[in-house]
């Protein structure tokens, strides 16, 4: 394709940054798709403000998208970009601190006007005042070249032409990293099918960007990153929210039960509602409720009726749902509560990630009301975590927390799509006939007669003749389920509910300790998986041993967890909170688990964690 030299790289981190209105998320998404199609492994990190479109050219309005792709397996979206595309001064200023010396920076010089510079407090132009002297800077008049390239499009206003500049940037980067643009072309054709002039302009801008790289002297060479060696299979790129939605649908399919979502929009969980709302064809029912309380109420009502009731939300929504979660605990009905965690407390940082809802999920209800908790580790893992949540909910007749977070939700990675037949069978049996006899020998139905093994009570759905029964949130007599204020019964029921959750079957924790001689264990949960794995890799590559394990089940813990913890001299628990898992571990196992915490609304960097591990190793030696 290119007549210039082509260099091979093993990994690249690119960050597109611009104004909220510049289409950076779309640009990043497209580059990701094209990269995925090429067979690289990858991981992405979108980052955008809580405002829809803060004032143009200001720091709060900056939106960015980072992509890490490689010829080997990728664990994180990358600590620091090798290439920063800065569409305006604000984007440059907001992101420059993350760019390591020697990296490449492409700036859209058209936007570096004195007015725009002033908006972010630059008194001189950083492009030529020496600020960027340690970087490879490519000043490109992105806007004006795009407009020029579209000179022939008379039907479009200048504004409309300018808007295509993100496609120009995409074309340029696609050339630089030898990405095919066919996927993007197909995408644009679908998106702008109804507006042929806009479509043509975007395609032209894309091509112009590519050609710009190919022809101008400024870009001396392009790069290739070979496909990663990945296990055979059919792959697609998925975000966590998409994978989670698919997991729920697949679970319902494998359970042969309807999926009913009751939800109230909230960032960063709304996309799950959007995704499921589009899946009516798969029998999915979605109800946008008047608030979070109604959302979970709807889901619980559907569960009572025999559906898989699901509610999706983020931390503030969980707070509102607490009372109803307690009701679900008391009713012992299946229910899935998806919490896509974001920065807190209160409204906090709505578009940023955090892991600070673990203890809310564990304890955020009145009374003793245990709820199982599952946390996916990567975007693609949201699929099987969702299926697992449904398994536990239906098997044990219990609400289940699925704790995702903002990073998993919007981040993406390649996913080896499973075949449907391989998926676990999740069929459950509804109660269909009386399960006891009364003193007179008549058959009766006892809604709280438990399964001996699982301690689950029968799920008897309305419409089943002979099983008419009443349940509620007041304490119930063991077995019969009648209202009971008996002291001993309450004690018994409280302990039974706890025992049921404690007894949930959960796989043993697997430890990754390749050398077998590690003295330090790094234990994580949720989305810290990537950074922890990457950091341990760095440490091991330097010839030192460190063990690593990752919890998917936060409640109940795997049965071997205590033994695992006790078999290391030091346990380090990195969390994006102030040490919530560490607290649970310390309480349960009396092990001096050491927290390493960061509450910055961003995933850990590999370097940071590698440092923590190294320091710990040194302390021990």
């Amino acid at each position, binding site marked *: 394709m290119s007549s210039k030299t082509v260099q091979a790289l093993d990994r690249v981190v690119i960050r597109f940054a611009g104004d909220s209105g510049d289409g950076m998320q779309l640009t990043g998404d497209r580059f990701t798709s094209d990269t995925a199609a090429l067979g690289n492994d990858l991981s992405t990190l979108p980052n955008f403000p809580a405002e829809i479109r803060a004032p143009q050219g200001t720091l709060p309005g900056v939106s960015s998208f980072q992509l890490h792709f490689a010829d080997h397996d990728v664990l994180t979206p990358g600590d620091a970009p090798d290439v920063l595309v800065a569409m305006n001064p604000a984007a440059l200023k907001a992101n420059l601190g993350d760019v390591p010396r020697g990296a490449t920076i492409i700036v859209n010089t058209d936007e570096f006007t004195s007015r725009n510079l002033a908006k972010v407090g630059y008194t001189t132009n950083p492009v030529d005042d020496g600020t960027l002297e340690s970087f490879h800077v490519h000043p490109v008049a992105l806007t004006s070249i795009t407009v020029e390239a579209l000179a022939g499009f008379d039907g479009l206003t200048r504004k409309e032409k300018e808007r295509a500049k993100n496609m120009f940037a995409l074309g340029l980067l696609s050339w630089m990293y030898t990405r095919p643009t066919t996927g993007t072309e197909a995408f644009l054709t679908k998106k702008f099918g109804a507006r042929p002039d806009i479509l043509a302009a975007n395609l032209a801008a894309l091509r112009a960007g590519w050609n710009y790289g190919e022809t101008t002297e400024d870009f001396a060479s392009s790069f290739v990153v070979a496909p990663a060696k990945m296990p055979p299979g059919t792959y697609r790129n998925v975000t966590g929210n998409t994978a989670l939605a698919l997991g729920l649908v697949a679970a319902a399919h494998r359970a042969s039960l309807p999926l009913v979502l009751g939800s109230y929009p909230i960032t960063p969980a709304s996309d799950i509602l959007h995704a499921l709302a589009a899946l009516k064809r798969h029998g999915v029912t979605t109800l946008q409720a008047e608030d979070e*309380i109604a959302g979970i109420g709807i889901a619980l*009502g559907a569960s009572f*009726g025999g559906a898989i009731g699901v509610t999706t939300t983020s931390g503030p929504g969980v707070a509102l749902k607490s009372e109803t979660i307690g009701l679900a605990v008391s009713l012992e009905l299946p229910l899935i509560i998806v919490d896509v965690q974001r920065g807190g407390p209160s409204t906090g940082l709505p578009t940023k990630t955090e892991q600070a809802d673990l203890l809310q999920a564990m304890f955020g209800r009145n009374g003793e009301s245990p709820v199982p908790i599952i946390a996916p580790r990567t975007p693609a893992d949201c699929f099987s975590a969702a299926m697992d949540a449904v398994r536990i909910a239906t098997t044990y007749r219990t609400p289940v927390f699925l704790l995702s977070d903002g990073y998993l939700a919007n981040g993406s990675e390649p996913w080896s799509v499973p075949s449907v037949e391989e998926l676990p069978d999740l069929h459950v049996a509804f109660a269909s006939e009386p399960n006891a006899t009364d003193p007179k020998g008549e058959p009766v139905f006892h809604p709280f007669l438990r399964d001996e093994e699982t301690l689950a009570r029968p799920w008897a759905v309305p419409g089943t003749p002979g099983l008419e029964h009443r349940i509620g949130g007041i304490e119930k007599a063991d077995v019969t389920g009648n209202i009971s204020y008996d002291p001993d019964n309450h004690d018994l029921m409280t302990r039974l509910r706890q025992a049921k959750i404690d007894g949930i079957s959960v796989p043993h924790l697997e430890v990754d300790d390749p050398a077998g001689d590690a003295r330090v264990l790094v234990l994580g949960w949720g989305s810290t998986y990537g950074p922890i794995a990457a950091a341990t890799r760095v440490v091991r590559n330097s010839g030192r041993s460190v063990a690593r394990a990752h919890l998917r089940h936060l409640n109940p813990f795997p049965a071997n967890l205590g033994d695992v913890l006790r078999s290391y001299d030091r346990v380090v628990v990195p969390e994006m909170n102030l040490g919530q898992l560490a607290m649970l571990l310390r309480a349960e196992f009396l092990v001096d688990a050491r927290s390493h915490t960061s509450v910055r609304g961003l995933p850990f960097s590999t370097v940071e964690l590698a440092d923590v591990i190294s320091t710990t190793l040194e302390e021990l030696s």
Partner: protein
Amino acid sequence: MTTIDVGMPVSGLRSVPHLPQEAAKQTKREFTSDQEVRWCPGCGDYVILAAVQAFLPELGLKRENIVFVSGIGCSSRFPYYLDTYGLHSIHGRAPAIATGLATSREDLSVWVVTGDGDALSIGGNHLIHALRRNVNMTILLFNNQIYGLTKGQYSPTSRVGQVTKSTPAGSVDYPFNPVSLALGAEATFVARAMESDRAELTTILKAAAEHRGTALVEIYQNCPIFNDGAFEVLKDRSQQEARIVRLRSGEHVTVGAEGDRKVLVRKGSGVMKFIPEAEAATGESGAVVAHDPTLDDPSQAFQLSRLDTPEMTHVPMGIFRQVSRPTYDDLVRDQVRAAVDTAGGPAGDAELGELLRGRDTWTVE
């Protein structure tokens, strides 16, 4: 589950399995559960319970397809005493839970039992949203103008000045008129009944059950312990006729006993007024108002709801509004059904596989 004919009006019970013609008629007894009723002696709830237990068999539905959902309050204990499916949930949330149930199960007859505190205080939002959405269910609002279960605080329907545990100097909150509120919230069926008038209550319950959409029935209920006699003037035979305005579709709106009857007229200014029957005949004081609950515009029903005053001088009873509008649950199900049908039936493994793969896959060999 069967499909629904979208031609209107459709019965609210259209898709609920009925007993076969030849089946023995159900009895009140069958609808009575084995649970001890735990209300105070003399509580109006007993009367309503008896009326409902006696009336349910008339619907001829399979008992297992009836579900009562309630919130919290004395009134909300109702489901325990009926031998149907029942869910005694949490304070104020029954309409939301019932929405999930009714939407996902069109084969159920869904009833909500709630109190003035449960429905109008903590549950106000779910109530008005259920009404605007028009979910196919019947809401029985037991209004005793007090919080019974928590031992006597004022409620959103208590009179201004009412002295209760939480308002020792008298309540200062201006009360809701539940009928006006419901009409403002786009309700399609709104009625009011007295606990003590079993015949009228039964007629209204029947119409409510038949209504496809959310039917709200406000039932005045006496709480002898904490608000005794709140509706005494309406129960008292000597005052009843002068105070109760019986709304009958197609008929004039009147009040008062034979001989002393007054008729509701609308003046040119639009104002409504009761005037003696004789005067009305002249037509001079305005047009005689005929009640029509089926009017598309809820304005007349709203105006009738305003006849009511804190002194209960003229209290309309009966069905204020009864109109057909597509129900939320039907529309939701229709969208899903249409999507499934268009695609040629429920998704099998192949279609799910396709969904999982999405539109942008690549293969590693």
